[in-house]
């Protein structure tokens, strides 16, 4: 009868500290902001440091396949930290979604992802909900043809995972036409990918369930990224408003502001519980994991947007400027809200899962 533990373990606290230190040192907001003007020089080195040096790329890969054999709970903590710094790295797309697609595959690719040697992306629009339609790529004689738009992690990937005809194929990114897209969130810049009858290697034969599971897990863990983002927004705003004086008083001492921040703090704590539960059920292979993933997305993705919007509003003028990092969080939060299904899409999904039938 004991409850699912929703607190952080000491191991997770240590992992968080390690990741935070690296991000504090190497992921400065000024450099992140430069992504919006096309300077992506930060990305490669940062991802290498996280993926290979810290070994985070292999977090969800079993030890006997070359990974760390950790669980979704540890991946969730990493994502909280990445969200906290809007870090422009393909952890979610490669180390979570692509990795989980390959989880039961044979062949060397999973191990190469685990070591950071390779980076992969599943060819789906970032907006795809776990229960949503997958893009149509045709396969004939092992050759893949089709166009998939708005893919996250494709720019950073050397390997693309293509769902076609019920199976997943891997192709070299170099063989595809990868066109970067000017994105709302340039810290997770998208690309359109065109496949002109290029050769793919079959990596998962009967892949529909694996892809859907990977997207469910992606949605569940995206919630932790959103929690990290929301918590930064809350903390940064509280800190600023303790300092900022207007009318001879700290702005954070005005009661209307205090109540809004209290409500936001309640929201962030609630979001944390929802995201932790989603990660915990995933880690435990609990049958409630699908519900938990949609609950987390239905709650946390709107909360993260609210947190970013409140951060901008309560920083007021300075929060509207390019120089202040708040806008990086606003754009990430809004893109994350659409990523892997909007809150509304997840609520609609829950209707069927928890027996609250749609009106006829």
């Amino acid at each position: 009868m004991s409850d699912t533990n929703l607190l952080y373990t000491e191991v997770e606290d240590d992992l968080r500290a390690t990741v935070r230190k690296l991000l504090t040192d190497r992921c400065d907001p000024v450099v992140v902001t430069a992504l919006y003007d096309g300077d992506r020089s930060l990305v490669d080195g940062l991802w290498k440091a996280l993926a290979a040096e810290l070994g985070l790329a292999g977090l969800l890969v079993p030890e006997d396949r070359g990974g760390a054999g950790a669980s979704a709970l540890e991946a969730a903590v990493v994502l909280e930290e990445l969200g906290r710094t809007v870090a422009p790295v393909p952890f979610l797309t490669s180390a979570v979604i692509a990795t989980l697609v390959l989880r039961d595959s044979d062949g060397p690719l999973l191990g190469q992802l685990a070591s950071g040697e390779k980076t992969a992306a599943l060819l789906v629009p970032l907006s795809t909900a776990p229960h949503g339609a997958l893009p149509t790529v045709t396969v004939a004689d092992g050759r893949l043809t089709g166009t998939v738009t708005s893919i996250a992690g494709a720019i950073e990937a050397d390997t693309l995972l293509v769902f076609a005809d019920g199976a997943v194929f891997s192709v070299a990114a170099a063989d595809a036409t990868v066109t970067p897209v000017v994105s709302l969130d340039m810290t997770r810049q998208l690309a359109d990918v065109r496949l002109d009858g290029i050769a793919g290697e079959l990596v998962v034969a009967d892949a529909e369930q694996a892809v859907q599971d990977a997207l469910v897990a992606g949605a569940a863990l995206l919630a932790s990224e959103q929690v990290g983002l929301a918590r930064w927004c809350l903390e940064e705003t509280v800190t600023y408003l303790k300092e900022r004086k207007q009318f001879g008083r700290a702005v954070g001492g005005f009661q209307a502001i205090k109540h809004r921040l209290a409500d936001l703090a309640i929201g962030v704590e609630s979001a944390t519980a929802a995201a932790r539960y989603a990660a915990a059920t995933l880690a435990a292979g609990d049958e409630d994991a699908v519900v938990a993933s949609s609950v987390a997305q239905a709650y946390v993705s709107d909360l993260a947007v609210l947190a970013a919007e409140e951060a901008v509003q309560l920083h007021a003028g300075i929060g509207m400027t390019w120089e202040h990092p708040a806008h990086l969080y606003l754009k990430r939060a809004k893109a994350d809200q659409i990523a892997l299904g909007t809150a509304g899409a997840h609520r609609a999904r829950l209707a069927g899962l928890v027996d609250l039938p749609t009106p006829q």
Partner: protein
Amino acid sequence: MTIDEQGLRRRIEEFLAAHDPATTERLEFLRARYNAGLAWVHFPEGHGGLGLPQAWQPAVDARFEAAGAPDNNKKANGIGLGMAAPTILRFGTEEQKQRFLRPLWTGEEIWCQLFSEPGAGSDLAALGTRAVREAASGDWIVNGQKVWTSGAHLAQFAILVARTDPDLPKHQGITYFLADMTDPGVDVRPLRQITGEAEFNEVFLTDVRVPDIQRLGEVGQGWAVANATLSNERVAIGGSPVRENGMIGVVAKAWRDHPELRTPELHDRLLRLWVEAEVSRLTGQRVRQKLALGQPGAEGAALKVTFARIAQELSGLELELRGEQSLRYSDWAMVRPDHVDFTGRDAGYRYLRAKGNSIEGGTSEILRNIMAERVLGLPSEPRVDKDVPWKDLAK
């Protein structure tokens, strides 16, 4: 030496073997259960517990219930069990614990709470009920008016805060007492509320006598003791242990039972609230895990704010869902219920009763202040009354 979960289970089975619920006299059973440390296992040994994690208690209760064990009147004694007991445990003398905790737990003595006053609601520390020490006896003589006292007409005892020094600033001159509700100076009058019921009472205190051994904590320390009581209340109220417990369960059932009433608009609102209720359940679970070893803090405030908001939105939605049926009400007759049931009676009652959720036990406004100041560390309001003697305050 503490025991593990298995040891606890064994102890329960041994107890049940020795005290067959079917044949043991009710009060005898309850007292024995208390004596065996199986009343509230997180309390210390000798006081009805075994010093175990509070999280284990629900399983204990479930096992006793399954075995057909008698109930300790817990619905009528929510104040006693949820608020008085932990406060007595924390601040009481050994004699007070011995005297009060067992009859409280067994339901032999029902408790009520004499905190709020007409002029001291959110600003509880402004309370004006006076307790003056009688030189000869050392007893305290209490005079004043309290309000919002549920169960006052059923209670044998009350937790009471009163002003013992009006010359000090308001927070400093308050003392906490355990008062006898059967004292002839206690006059309980029902207070009818918007549901038609009189769930609460006004309590008029005229020369009520409280012996000094029924003072809880030091003279002048009553504010700190009262705050501990209120924190317990808030943790108790927020966050359901199981999915679809409480108001969401009732409204989800209405949705399932009435396909003909469903609309797309109400569907999305219901789904939002279902998600919020589920997240609030998880948040409560997380808070309880955090608090398992420590004392309750401001986290309970957050739970209660959320609980109230969700209950209010859900009960409002239910009336819109039920449409014509919602225009009808069960009964406006004034009754004095034995206990509160937020989801009881009909949809109209639920809607009206839920309005109290954001007022009783600390308004949501006050709780947001607490959150902002204690959790976020934001500056407190400019205080005009902090260092002023109570007797000089504007009222």
